[in-house]
């Protein structure tokens, strides 16, 4: 019997400031430096312990195609993240996981990939985006639509630049509120749909962001001819155990931590309580 609540120790290798309230932590397992034992899929999450404070779920923002370290991007918003933000290089945290179903990368092969992210919704998609880009020839067209409140709230600014320069990626970024030095798009994420050509029949759409954004994006996608099962999102709930036992994340008899967090839109519509 495994001790399902026993965390493994990991060290913070790097901390990168993304926005004034968001940081990306690079973690390496202390006792398994190469991380070979930790197999995960994009979209899965881990329970991160700040010892003495507790643990909380965070999505894995790095790609399984780049093993060795794990990255997670965290916005400071609660008790645990308030402690986490104070940690730096060399500090130790605990990791349990990976948990959840993750994105079905195998099933997406050969498809066009559309990523629609809002604000802090980009990190779970970043894992999948790098997975797709690292196996670029296995996938069709890659389109990334990303929006944030202001230019300061955009995460992974360096990577946005990298993706923007690649000829095999179409990246469009928008902000709700621009400042004088912003020359890009202004408006909410759905306005970007007018600027790209989509092929709903051959495309899988991955949508991640605040609930209000998801609602409008999904509505637009369905209107544009996407099938419900081709629109894939991740749900967010309060989670504690990660293994479908504590009941915090239950929706009906489904558990976001175990049956999700990745659901297609048809599954989401069927979640009843």
């Amino acid at each position: 019997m495994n001790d399902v609540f026993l965390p493994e120790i990991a060290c913070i290798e790097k901390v990168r400031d993304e926005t004034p309230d968001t940081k990306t932590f690079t973690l390496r397992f202390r006792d398994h430096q190469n991380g070979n034992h930790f197999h995960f899929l994009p979209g899965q999450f881990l329970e991160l312990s700040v010892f003495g404070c507790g643990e909380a779920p965070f999505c894995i923002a790095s790609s399984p195609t780049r093993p060795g370290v794990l990255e997670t991007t965290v916005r400071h918003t609660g008790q645990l993240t308030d402690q986490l933000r104070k940690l730096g290089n060399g500090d130790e945290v605990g990791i349990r996981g990976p948990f959840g179903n993750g994105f079905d990368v195998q099933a997406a092969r050969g498809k066009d990939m559309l990523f629609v992210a809002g604000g802090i919704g980009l990190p779970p998609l970043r894992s999948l985006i790098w997975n797709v880009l690292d196996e670029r020839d296995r996938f069709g067209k890659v389109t990334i639509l990303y929006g944030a409140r202001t230019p300061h709230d955009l995460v992974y600014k360096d990577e946005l630049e990298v993706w923007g320069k690649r000829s095999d990626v179409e990246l469009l970024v928008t902000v709700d509120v621009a400042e004088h030095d912003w020359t890009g798009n202004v408006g909410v994420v759905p306005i970007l749909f007018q600027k790209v050509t989509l092929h709903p029949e051959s495309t899988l759409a991955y949508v991640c962001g605040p609930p209000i954004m998801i609602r409008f994006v999904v509505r637009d996608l369905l209107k544009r001819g996407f099938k419900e099962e081709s629109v894939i999102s991740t749900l967010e709930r309060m989670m504690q155990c990660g293994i479908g036992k504590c009941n915090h994340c239950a929706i009906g008899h489904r558990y976001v931590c175990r049956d999700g967090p990745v659901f297609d839109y048809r599954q989401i519509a069927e979640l009843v309580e």
Partner: protein
Amino acid sequence: MVFTIPKEGTTQWLEKLLEAGEVIAPVRGPCGDVIFSALRSPTQVLWDFENPLHPPKQFVLPQTDPLVKIKLNGQRHEVEPIHDDAPRTLFNVRSCDVKGIAFLTRMHEADPPDASYLRRARNLTIISLACTTPCPAGFCVCTDSGPFLSAGYDLQLTDLGGSFFAEVGSEKGEAAMAKAPELFRKAREDEVTDRTALEAVAKTRFGPETCHFGSAMRRISTGRVQDALWEKMGDWCLECGGCNMVCPTCYCFSVKDLRQNGAWVRCRMWDSCQYNAFALEASGHNPRAHRKERMKRRFFHKASAQYYTRDSMVGCVGCGRCIKTCLGSTHMPAVVAAIRKGKWHE
């Protein structure tokens, strides 16, 4: 296999059981109420008692359950699992509570198995006392968890007057009898007849509480309970969480780090789905911000076909504890009746 033990032999038997480990039984607490507690002496055991308000689930799933010890050595954290392998005997527990533990065990055995719980459950011997007189608020006959059981116990005792009838349900039950083999003898035909008659009589002596899950389940499972009804019932709920704490089948928990003797101990602690913050996210978003939504959640988990299919039983053992503890009267039989009738009493 059925046996009997004379009443005067029980003290000697309990002494033997106490030698093998902790024996938890209903005893008279310091304030005069009946509680489940570890025995110091066999004479403490109550044989005719009102079932304690708190079920014995705390001995398999403690309210604060230590899971992991976290120590800091210089700059290095060390984590080690905390195991509780102590052998325990639950003695004179009622049928409903046996079924409650069976429910919890099935849940914790499910993928992935929960070692912390299962270690305790596997080292636990359950010696139950069948209810020849149902308790006043009990409705276990509606949930197939009493007054007598046909499975789930290690040993089931029935009070025959001068002796106890003992039915063996498992090897652990046999082992418990083998602690004092000289006290037990094979039951005679007439004793078997007496025991059967007692069960038949007990079934006719239930109080007024009933709980007809069938039609309520149909409505709960298909979302056909009107929102206004949940709202009305939610208005009566005081959000005290008492129903969850005293329920033999409730197991929702939170995980917290506690400071103990210079180390951190990660603990699982009982939580209540009726508390506002149960589903509150760090972002401030709360998918169950209203009492009606939390009440709906509780009864979906207890009495929906979806969960019935998973657990092979409703999440209720008919013990009636929620009736005793709920100040707002939104207990199981009242809510199930309201759902069946489509209206809440005013």
